[in-house]
């Protein structure tokens, strides 16, 4: 089922959480709402679910006006950041809940509910834990139970609010791959909220980058990463270095054009060399060298302006260069994206 969000506004007191947000989520896709905290992404998700009402604007499910229908009637599955499992119920009862609260006419029989719950337990690989209580499960297990509970009622839309936010890094990485595989199997239209750009890039079919209650850019992960529409998107999706200069959109040039511009360069797109091999390279002094797992992070200062710069080198390259703190080297940006100066991050 597709979701269409039309010009939604939402205020909490004086604070504008969403400013005229419009978005279409195509049927069957897995879409990430990505942004820093306070960007309005969770509010948007809760408005889609019906847990929050927009001040203005409308929500359409498959073209049908849904803005004023109750949460109950929307048939959405919602997965909360802190799981929100019913703490006094077993895993089995948690997953069965949505089926047992159905009106008597629609409610499946006990045997059918049991069958359905075990089918879901198998899907989340927790069949042997059916009789446990939420407090007896690990964070990752709880989140899978929460997902199974949401899927039990066969929702038309699956909404996930920072589903992996409260988990440690390793479990998070496992679970998001699992979510991706799950989505490839069941193809329910899904929207998930995250502030982790890596998670969004890895899991989503489409990414919607949000900032200060507005959508900055939407597109496939590759589009968003390779062709960021705004400086905000560029800097939110990874480490960034700024080169101030004057130029036209496209590349920074020596001060010929009258427009002040800023060149944005990712840390891993900066090449560090001992010899001057290319005329675009500039001189810089090495401030610090730090090994971070498979990468080496080098902090530099440009010789002419003193501006700070960060380069990420592979261990192999760093070992070959064997950089010493204090020495002078040449740095060359491999790929520069230019935005006019008046943009604010």
């Amino acid at each position, binding site marked *: 089922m597709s979701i269409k969000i039309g010009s939604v506004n939402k205020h909490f007191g004086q604070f504008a959480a969403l400013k005229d947000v419009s978005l279409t989520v195509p049927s069957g896709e897995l879409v990430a709402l990505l942004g820093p905290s306070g960007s309005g992404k969770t509010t948007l998700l809760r408005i889609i679910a019906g847990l929050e009402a927009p001040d203005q604007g409308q929500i359409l499910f498959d073209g049908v006006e849904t803005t004023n229908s109750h949460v*109950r009637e929307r048939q959405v599955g919602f997965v909360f950041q802190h799981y929100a*499992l*019913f703490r006094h119920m077993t895993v089995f009862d948690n997953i069965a809940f949505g089926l047992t609260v159905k009106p008597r006419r629609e409610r499946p029989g006990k045997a059918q509910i049991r069958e359905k719950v075990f089918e879901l337990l198998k899907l989340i690989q927790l069949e042997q834990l059916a009789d446990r209580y939420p407090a007896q499960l690990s964070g990752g297990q709880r989140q899978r139970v929460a997902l199974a509970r949401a899927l039990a009622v066969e929702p038309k839309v699956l909404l996930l609010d920072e589903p992996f936010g409260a988990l440690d890094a390793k479990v998070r990485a496992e679970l998001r791959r699992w979510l991706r595989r799950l989505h490839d199997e069941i193809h329910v239209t899904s929207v998930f909220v995250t502030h982790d750009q890596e998670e969004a890039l890895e899991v989503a079919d489409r990414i919607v980058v949000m900032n200060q209650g507005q959508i900055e850019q939407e597109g496939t992960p590759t589009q968003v990463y390779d062709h960021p529409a705004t400086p905000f998107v560029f800097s939110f999706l990874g480490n960034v270095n700024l080169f101030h200069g004057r130029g036209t959109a496209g590349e920074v040039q020596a001060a010929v054009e009258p427009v002040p511009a800023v060149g944005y360069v990712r840390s891993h797109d900066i090449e560090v060399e001992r010899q001057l091999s290319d005329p675009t390279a500039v001189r810089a002094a090495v401030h610090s060298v730090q090994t971070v797992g498979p990468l080496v992070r080098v902090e530099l200062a440009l010789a002419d302006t003193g501006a700070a710069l960060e380069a990420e080198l592979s261990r192999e390259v760093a070992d070959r260069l064997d950089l010493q703190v204090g020495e002078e080297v040449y740095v060359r940006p491999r790929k520069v994206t230019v935005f006019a100066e008046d943009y604010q991050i």
Partner: protein
Amino acid sequence: MHVAGGLKKTKSTKQGRGLGEPTLVRWLLIVVALVFLALFLLVPLAAVFSQALEKGWETYLAALHEPDTLAAIKLTLLTAAISVPLNLVFGVVAAWGIAKFDFPGKSFLITLIDLPFSVSPVVSGLIYVLLFGLQGWLGPWLQAHDLKIIFAVPGIVLATIFVTFPFVARELIPLMEAQGREEEEAALTLGASGLQTFFRVTLPNIKWGILYGVILCNARAMGEFGAVSVVSGHVRGSTNTIPLQVEILYNEYNFVAAFAVASLLALLALVTLVVKTVAEWKVRQELANN
């Protein structure tokens, strides 16, 4: 004694050795606490029972079987049986509204709920006399319709309800606020109705908190003196509750009977204490399961 022992245990497991007080100080503090406890709680309690049983079990039981005393016990039970369920319903509804929803005037409502705690019970009794008494606002109307509130059972029930109404709500509001709204929201997204959500999700999560609140509410309802004293009129065998009966008997120098009736309240206090300890422990578990 049992409570003190339990407390000490958790304390020593939670603190490292380096954080503990010197042994002497620790023992001194414990002794001071125990002496205080004995002087102000155990000795009076023992005195109540020893005075009540001074002339033997038969006199004790006879004192309790006295018709006026039996009437006082009945009235006290009736008052509690009306005011506790009403305050239970009110407390749960108020706590639910306050903890799970945002609305203007919320903090004002919380202040209102606390009002009976901050007003002297005698004043709360007087309010009803001013309202429903013969010289009160509604007095003439009530008399014209032959309705008796002041110096009758309805007045006692009203005063008791007023004095005891914060207990359940006060107990539940922090518990429900700590538990948050997410479970209720999850139930709603899964298609549950408001009532289903309340009975299947909210209520099981707060049942021990409710019990705790009800116990405190009941203890106060049965033991309330000031407010009830003002509205009761002290009519023997008809508008006397247990605490009022104790006072009357004592003023008549009927010490054995006075202490025998008082021992009922003391027993109630002991039962309350035990149930309260269990309920408190369960509430802590409910919170820990977050």
